[in-house]
């Protein structure tokens, strides 16, 4: 079972993307989408060493909602900073210790950091324990690191990793 159907979640996502691509929900297209969703992970199985497991799907939905709101806020923040006085910005690099272990969760966190207020993830250390973050305008680096930890890292840990 596991060998012939390695990634059920990925299969559903691929089927969904296929339906969006063809822009129809004709039964034939649904079958074709599910077939593609089954075939593609099977053929690319060596690129997916670990199975994706979501422990708390409803937390994921809630988390996506928070991110969307934060993205909109981030846009206004950055727009204000760009239009304001760029000379007065206080950019800084922050090295943030990570509690996440799985690859997927770390890449998720790095993406979210880049999409949200005034921060870009810059580099993951070789031992995967520290993520370097560049902040556009920051006065208190520790406070920012704590905000990222409590707001994004903790929910991701609950969603993708068994506690």
């Amino acid at each position, binding site marked *: 079972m596991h060998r012939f159907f390695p990634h059920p979640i990925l299969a559903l996502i691929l089927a969904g993307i296929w339906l*969006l691509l063809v822009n129809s929900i004709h039964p034939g297209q649904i079958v074709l989408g599910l077939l593609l969703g089954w075939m593609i992970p099977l053929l690319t199985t060596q690129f997916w060493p670990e199975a994706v497991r979501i422990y708390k799907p409803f937390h994921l939905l809630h988390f996506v909602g928070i991110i969307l709101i934060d*993205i909109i806020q981030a846009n206004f923040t*950055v727009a204000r900073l*760009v239009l304001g006085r760029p000379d007065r910005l206080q950019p800084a*690099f922050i090295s943030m210790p990570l509690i996440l272990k799985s690859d997927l969760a770390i890449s998720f966190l790095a993406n979210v*950091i880049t*999409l949200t207020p005034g921060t870009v*993830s810059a*580099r993951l250390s070789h031992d995967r324990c520290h993520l370097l973050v*560049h902040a556009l305008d920051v006065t208190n680096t520790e406070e920012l690191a704590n905000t990222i930890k409590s707001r994004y890292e903790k929910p991701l840990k609950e969603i993708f990793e068994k506690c």
Partner: protein
Amino acid sequence: MLEVFISLLILTGAIFTFIGSLGLVRLKDFYTRIHGPTKATTLGVGSLLIASALYFSYLERSISLHEVLVTLFLFITAPVSAHMLTKAALHLGLQSLARLPEQQVNRQHNEQEAKHDQGD
């Protein structure tokens, strides 16, 4: 009524995309410049895409959802490319307004050694 709403969305999108590009000119170093295109444009392109979806759904009397895909791919690829660009810049040691992390590490290391020496 819908047309007014769509026009507003397109205007918002255009303004945010413009501010994002303006950031490239106004900000001073590579690391801060990368913030402009990654952030201000997500909302800009987002509202343009919502406007597009609404307009074509209204025009063709059927739901147009290609825009959802564009959003999805944009949100996946934009942070990754920003991450790679920043990483490359760090690797090359481009000059930065903020203290570069290597220097920070060295400084901490030196401080620790200084403390250690004092302890002796």
